[in-house]
């Protein structure tokens, strides 16, 4: 009984220490500097389009509509939308520099969530959700107590007496860290539930999509299923382990470094820019004061002293209270934005000819597009056809064009879903395209690939051959290969005709 009570109290203490331990909020301050900046980048891109995306003079499609709940949020008129949007931008900029930090982040976060919810098609994404969580938690955190205008003003009030950074309870920072654990765990669950994720097909189709920014590395790797297969397993294992191991002092850095590599990978392979930027700036919440001191020592050893930059800080007299200055600046920013938007005249209404005309289309092309009902070509049901000799995870792992006697040729066709149940043949032909033999198999509708295996024995003479993939009487693809060396049968008796 006593031991159980002791265990309970020890668990309570551990949890209490975990959330309420006091630390200098350096990680939170770094996150405050970088995260709003990353969250702002896509929003700044949308600034000239506020009228179109978020106002009653445009086409906002609220997230609530996508979920079938109708228009829940009030839709502002264009002027009000621009004022609110500029206020959001101003507040997030103030959050970055730490000016009226909590107020700025509070207003900025509320408006950021509002505008994301207002456009479920072209603004709201999962990086917006992660950024919303982090911004909310930053608002609650003491992130403005370090490296901020607020702190500078505080020091000025205290006649520039350098104050030793105060420590604060870390609960809001812990929640930011826990958020990542939940995100990765949830992402792993999604992948586990996604058909064809572990065989790489899903990843391949994503890499070949042009929905994000350019991803030449992804396009290259999309054709190498073994890489996708291995990376799929590694990703899921890392995502599940993250929430358990990142708290370990020794494993913290390796887990975060792996995460950084993973996110940089999504940039290279999938063409995602903002998602990794948001996540990596969120990672800064894992930074501790020891990490910062270590970096400082390293910089000092190379003669770099960031602290000296403060010497160049402006010596502005405390004439007007910071809050009043903030409000005036916010107002000026909003008025300036409304004026800029008016002058920008997105729809060209104030031009000489009024609204712009829409472009006429070639009649023949228009009719062909409207009436188009071309049946799916047999070859378009297939993604690729390759030959090689090694399989990994049930998939062709290499590609070869030269084989020798005794080798196994694996011919693999990949199919694009959806397709019906199909009878697919693989035909071996000689250099003159004469059929030597063939084999077929049923590929049912749920299958994404089929394999044909051929043992290169003594029946063939050395030379050039091709494997031909056929379906529904059509040649889909042809792969040439060369058989080299001497037939084993020839070693025994060269007079025997072996085919």
């Amino acid at each position, binding site marked *: 009984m006593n031991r159980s009570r002791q265990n309970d109290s020890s668990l309570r203490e551990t949890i209490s220490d975990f959330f*309420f331990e006091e630390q200098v909020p350096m990680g939170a301050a770094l996150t405050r500097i970088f995260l709003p900046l990353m969250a702002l980048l*896509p929003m700044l891109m*949308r600034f000239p389009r506020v009228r179109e995306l978020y106002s009653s003079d445009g*086409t906002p499609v609220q*997230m609530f*509509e996508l*979920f*079938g*709940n*109708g228009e*829940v949020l009030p839709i502002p008129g264009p002027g009000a939308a621009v004022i609110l949007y500029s206020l959001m931008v101003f507040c997030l900029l103030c959050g970055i520099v730490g000016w009226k930090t909590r107020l700025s982040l509070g207003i900025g976060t509320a408006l950021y969530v509002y505008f994301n919810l207002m456009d479920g*098609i*072209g603004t*709201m*994404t*999962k990086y917006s*959700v992660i950024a*919303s*969580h982090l911004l909310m938690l930053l608002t609650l955190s003491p992130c403005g107590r370090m490296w901020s205008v607020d702190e500078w003003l505080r020091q000025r009030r205290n006649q520039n007496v350098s104050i030793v950074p105060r420590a604060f309870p870390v*609960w809001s920072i812990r*929640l930011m860290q*826990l958020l990542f654990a*939940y995100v990765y765990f*949830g*992402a792993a*669950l*999604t992948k586990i539930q*996604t*058909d064809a*994720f572990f065989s790489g097909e899903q990843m391949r189709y994503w890499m*070949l*999509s*042009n*929905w*994000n920014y350019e991803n*030449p590395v992804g*396009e290259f790797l999309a054709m190498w299923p073994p890489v996708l297969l291995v990376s799929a397993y590694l990703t899921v294992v890392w995502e599940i382990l993250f929430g358990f191991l990142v708290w370990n002092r020794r494993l913290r850095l390796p887990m975060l470094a792996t995460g950084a590599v993973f996110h940089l990978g999504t940039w290279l392979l999938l*063409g995602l820019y903002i*998602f990794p930027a948001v996540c990596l700036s969120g990672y800064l919440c894992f930074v501790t004061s020891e990490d910062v001191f270590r970096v400082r020592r390293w910089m000092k050893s190379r003669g770099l002293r960031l602290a000296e930059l403060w010497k160049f800080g402006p010596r502005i007299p405390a004439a007007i209270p910071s809050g009043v200055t903030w409000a005036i600046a916010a107002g000026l920013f909003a008025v300036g934005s409304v004026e800029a938007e008016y002058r920008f005249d997105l729809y*060209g209404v104030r031009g000489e000819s009024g*609204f*712009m*005309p*829409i472009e*006429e*289309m070639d*009649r023949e092309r*228009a*009719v062909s*597009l*409207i009436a*188009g*009902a071309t049946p*799916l070509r047999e070859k378009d049901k297939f993604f*690729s056809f390759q030959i090689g000799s090694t399989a990994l995870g049930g998939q062709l792992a290499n590609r070869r064009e030269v084989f020798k006697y005794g080798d196994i040729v694996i011919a693999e066709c990949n199919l*694009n879903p*959806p*397709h*019906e149940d199909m009878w697919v043949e693989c035909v071996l032909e000689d250099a003159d395209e004469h059929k030597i033999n063939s084999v077929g198999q049923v590929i049912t509708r749920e299958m994404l690939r089929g394999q044909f295996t051929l043992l290169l024995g003594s029946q063939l003479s050395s030379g050039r051959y091709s494997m031909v993939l056929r379906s529904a009487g059509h040649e889909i693809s*042809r792969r040439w290969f060369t058989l080299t060396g001497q037939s084993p049968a020839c070693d025994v008796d060269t007079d025997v005709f072996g085919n």
Partner: protein
Amino acid sequence: MSQTGKWIAGLFIGCYLAVLSFGIAGHALKFGLAGNTLSYFVVWDMFCGWQAYDQRTHLIAESVSGRYYDLREPWGEFHPYGSLGRIQYDVFGHMVSKHINHLLTHTQHEPIDSVYVVEEAWPKQYNLPERLWKRNFGTKRDKISYYHLRATCNGDGNVVNLNPDWMNQQVLNSIADNPRLRHEVNQAHSSFGMWYVPTAHTSRHGLRQSTAVAPSTN
């Protein structure tokens, strides 16, 4: 930190972690998420699946004089995440009606009778750049696009005729490629009345029929 502050913070921590846990459990067990917009904030389905075919949407307006117009923003499309216009990310057609209405009320044109929503689709292997195509396929690239009339709208953007989307049509085609199934479906009789009740949101704006997965724009 005061004891009261600790209690308030503790309450917030408990609620926040409970909400995050609900998202994980709801997503894993598929409950409580349908129709729940706020669940989007706690479900981490960044990898919800991708189709084998790339798709684009074209809007073609037909005027009362029989001329055709390429209906797109003359002031320039907004590209939210890359080089594609915003309408291309509207996979389920939630925005189409509003978009058509918006374009027609903000542009100069003769009276419009109908607007055709045409889908274009092609297999994704054709997205490979030329260099990689040659290296991986070794044949001439003969890409064709499949066009499919998804919906017909009137001059206000309201849907007057709706067809299954192209992907859904391919799924139906592949299922229908079964003589026994076709025969049994033809023999069967359905009773109507209580099986499907359209709601305001399913019958008005959205063109929601596809069973295929949507691209995630994360």
